[in-house]
């Protein structure tokens, strides 16, 4: 593989990772729009919606509300994007904290509770990583990993433990198998013995 193709592949993966980092925000909006009662205080990110716009339009495929036109690049709003309709307006948000490891962006902290996340897990698949954080202290806000990285570390993913294919959180990448396989093959340090795949163990 030539150098230019290698760089292109890395950039594609990085782009996907950043895009996926916006999903929690889109999910939060979806919850706020569809799953939260009026008694729930309006989270900060709701302030992005201009007053008086119709939330329902987002989830029900109705004509694009006015504020959607505010985004400069309409082509980003691909109708086939699997992030869902709510996600589209979130994608173009230039959130510097994602790329530069600054403290957790505001939208990360705004999920009312984990159960709400679970309830919509089948709607937006990239959700359940929020629940498994065993210890919030592990997610040191001062580290330089960035928002995308912090949830990666503490996930005790059963799929990994049993040698199965892509763990749940890896599904955030469009091509989970590729990312996972890279991990499997990459970290072969000296003295690190190999473990069998589940299929090998069974076979």
């Amino acid at each position: 593989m030539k150098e230019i193709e290698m760089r292109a592949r890395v950039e594609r993966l990085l782009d996907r990772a950043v895009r996926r980092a916006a999903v929690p925000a889109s999910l939060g909006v979806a919850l706020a729009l569809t799953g939260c009662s009026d008694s729930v205080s309006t989270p900060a990110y709701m302030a992005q919606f201009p007053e008086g716009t119709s939330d329902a339009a987002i989830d029900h495929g109705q004509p694009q509300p006015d504020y959607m036109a505010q985004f400069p690049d309409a082509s980003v709003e691909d109708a086939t994007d699997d992030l869902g309709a709510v996600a589209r307006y979130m994608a173009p948000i230039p959130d510097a904290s994602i790329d530069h490891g600054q403290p957790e962006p505001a939208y990360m902290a705004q999920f009312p509770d984990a159960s709400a996340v679970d309830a919509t897990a089948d709607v937006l698949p990239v959700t359940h990583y929020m629940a498994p954080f065993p210890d919030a202290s592990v997610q040191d806000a001062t580290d330089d990993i960035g928002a995308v990285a912090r949830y990666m570390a503490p996930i005790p993913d059963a799929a990994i433990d049993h040698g199965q294919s892509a763990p749940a959180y890896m599904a955030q990448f469009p091509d989970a198998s590729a990312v996972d396989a890279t991990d499997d093959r990459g970290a072969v340090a000296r003295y690190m013995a190999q473990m069998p795949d589940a299929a090998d163990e069974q076979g």
Partner: protein
Amino acid sequence: MIKFLKQVGFAPRSCVWELTLACNMRCKHCGSFAGERRSDELTKDELLRIAGELGDLGCQRVTLSGGEPTLHPAWDEVGRRLTECGVRVNIISNGWSWDAEQARRAKVAGLAAAAFSLDGFEQEHDALRRPGSFDRVVRAIDTTVARGLPVAINTTISKLNQHMFYELREFLMARGVFSWQVQVATASGTMSHNRDLVVDPSDFLEIVSCVGEMCRLNTRAFTVRPSDDIGYYGKYEAVIRGEKTELPFWIGCRAGCQVIGIESSGDVKGCLSLPSSKHGESRFVEGNLRSSSLASIWTREGAFAYNRQFQEKSLRGFCSVCRYRDFCRGGCTWTQYVEGDTGNPFCFYFQAVRQQRYDLLEEEPTEVEKAYAGTDRVGGARPADVIHSPETDPQ
């Protein structure tokens, strides 16, 4: 490419854990001076506590290592604690004292596999390790396979075995081994006193090519897995890293990014192979688990800076002008260290450029690379000396 690893996240997914430095062998190529146990090795309670911390940090795989890990009386208890935390665990042994009872303990502890070191056939293996060790390790392999525990093999490539890959492959397949990891011996640890056994870097083209060809033959039943010190780039890179992956090429050392090493004293390094007190070197030790938690060491600002805060200007020799330098970061950190910070000659790309075997590369080397490689100054010289030298300037 550190940018990519940073984005994916720094998390200790894989750990190699030296339970004890005690060893019943004195291998000529041992990189860690194993033999006597350290005077300050962790207690069983400390080991079990750390096992829990690894699980809490989301570690996915742990290799119990040494020294000879089975000389630690609680190796299986540590393994069990890890598996209870959801970690996949295996053990790597020299096989000298491994018998059916050890295999049973491994299975009871829930280990996923046992790996044994095998460095050739009887003549080569015993010469590097200990008379009679070949017979013992073969017996260990057979005993473990018979018990239904998957068996992997680690082979350290030296001058003694660099021409017998295919014979070894056939031998291991016939014994029911499922995975064979090959790695290159460098002149560190005890091997620094046996430099005549270290493969010549100029042979790296042949070695990597042979390993790559073997990788093409991989099946689900038996796979050859080159270690991180084998490569980099060129025509075999994809098959070595895994052709079906989205990034089928080396993206740099993961020590301190996704890999962690723990010494039996509790010292934490990005990779167990990196030098420490036994080598008179402290720069790679990030902290000690007696006085700090694993999480605090892992997340400490400035930790593992050689990788997490990598800067291209730290590269020396050919590496500093290589087109892949931001991906590769000089290859295996340990090899870089051993080579005295003068660049990494154990590099397929460098050797191909140096030997003008451009047919083994995916594209023509740059003029700067050719100029540098052609100066016969593998390391030591700053590239600027070469780039601006009248005698090597392609213009």
